[in-house]
C-alpha cells in the first residue's frame, strides 16, 4: 500500500541474491548464494518468512517450475523481483551509498593511525 517501502537488512540481502541468480532463484539456490557471498547460513525458515512477507508486500512474485524426482515430485517456485521490489532495493542502496560516501571501510587501519 505504501509507495515507498523501507527494507530490512535481510530483505535486501535476499533481493540482491535473487537478482544475482536471475532465472534460477528459488529456495535452495538463494540459500547457497547468500552463504557463498556473505558467509552467513540463514535457516530456511527465516528465508521463507522473508520471501512470503515480501510477496505480500508485492516486492517479489513467484513463477512455478516443473516437478522433479529429487524434490519428491514437487515443483520449484522461482522468485522474481517486481518493479516495486527493485525500486525499494535501489532506494535502500542509495541511502547506504550516501552514508558510506567519504568513508574508507575496506582499507585496513594503519598501526597507530586514526580510523577513517
Amino acid at each position: 500500500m505504501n509507495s515507498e517501502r523501507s527494507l530490512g537488512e535481510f530483505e535486501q540481502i535476499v533481493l540482491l541474491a535473487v537478482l544475482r541468480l536471475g532465472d534460477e532463484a528459488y529456495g535452495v539456490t538463494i540459500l547457497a548464494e547468500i552463504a557463498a557471498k556473505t558467509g552467513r547460513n540463514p535457516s530456511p525458515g527465516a528465508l521463507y518468512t522473508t520471501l512470503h512477507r515480501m510477496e505480500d508486500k508485492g516486492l517479489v512474485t513467484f513463477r512455478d517450475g516443473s516437478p522433479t524426482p529429487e524434490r519428491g515430485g514437487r515443483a520449484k517456485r522461482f522468485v522474481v523481483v517486481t518493479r516495486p521490489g527493485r525500486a525499494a532495493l535501489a532506494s535502500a542502496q542509495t541511502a547506504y551509498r550516501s552514508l558510506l560516501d567519504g568513508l574508507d571501510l575496506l582499507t585496513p587501519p594503519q598501526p597507530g593511525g586514526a580510523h577513517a
Partner: protein
Amino acid sequence: MPKSPPAAATPTEWLLARIAGPTRAAAILGDLLELSATRGRLWFWIAYVHTLVSLGWRAPVAFLCAYFFSSWVATAGFSTLRHLFGFRFRSSPGHVFHPALHAIWHVPMGDSLIALWFILPFVLVRFGVRDRLTWLTCALFLLTIPFFSLSAAGVNFAGVVTAATVLAALCLRGWRRPMIVLVATVGPIAVAIFFSAKVWYLFLSRGYGYASPQLQRAMTLYRALELSIAAIVCSSLYRRLLQMKPTDRSTIA
C-alpha cells in the same frame, strides 16, 4: 526437463499447508527435501520444525495475547483505568445528546469500543506495528478512551470521533480496506459482548452465584469462542483485502 508425477500430499506437507497455503507448502517441502539429500535426515526435521514455527507463531500467540488481555480488561482493567484517569463509572452515561438516542448511541458504541480492547493486542501481534490495520485500531483505541468515563462529554466525544474516523477512513483510498477489516472484526465481538449479559442472566436466574465455577467456566468458553470467531474473520478478510494478490506480469522488473 523430464516431468515427474505430482507428489501426493504427506502429513508434513498437509501441516505446513495449514500455515503457508498449499502452493507455498509444496515448494518449501521440495526445497527441504532437495537440501536434505546432502545435509541428512536430522537436518530435514530440524529445518521443517523451524520453518513451521517461523511461519506460524504469530496467529496462536496473537490469539493468546488477545485472550489474556481481554480477561484482564474484564477483571482488573476497568478499575485500573479508574485509578489511572480518575474516571467515575456509572451504570448509565445519563445525558447523551438525547435520552431517546441512548439505545442506538451508547449501547452499540460501548460494545464496539470494548471490542477494540480485544482486537488491539491481536492485530498488534498478528500483523505487526507497521501495519495499517494496527495503526487504525491503535488510533481508535486511544481516541475513544474518554468513552469509558461514561460521562456525557466523554461518550459524545468518543462517538463523534469514532464516526468521523470511520467515515474519513472509508473515504480515503489507502485506509478504506483496513477500516472494512476492522469494522467486520469489531462486529462479531460487539454482538457477543451484547449477548454476554444474557449468559450472565441465564446463570444467575438458575441460582448460580457471580463467583460460581460454572459461570466462570461458561464465560471463559464464551470469551474464547467470540475471540476465535473474530480472529477468523479478521485473518480471512485481511488475506482477501489487504494482502497483495499474485503480482501482475507488468509489474515484474
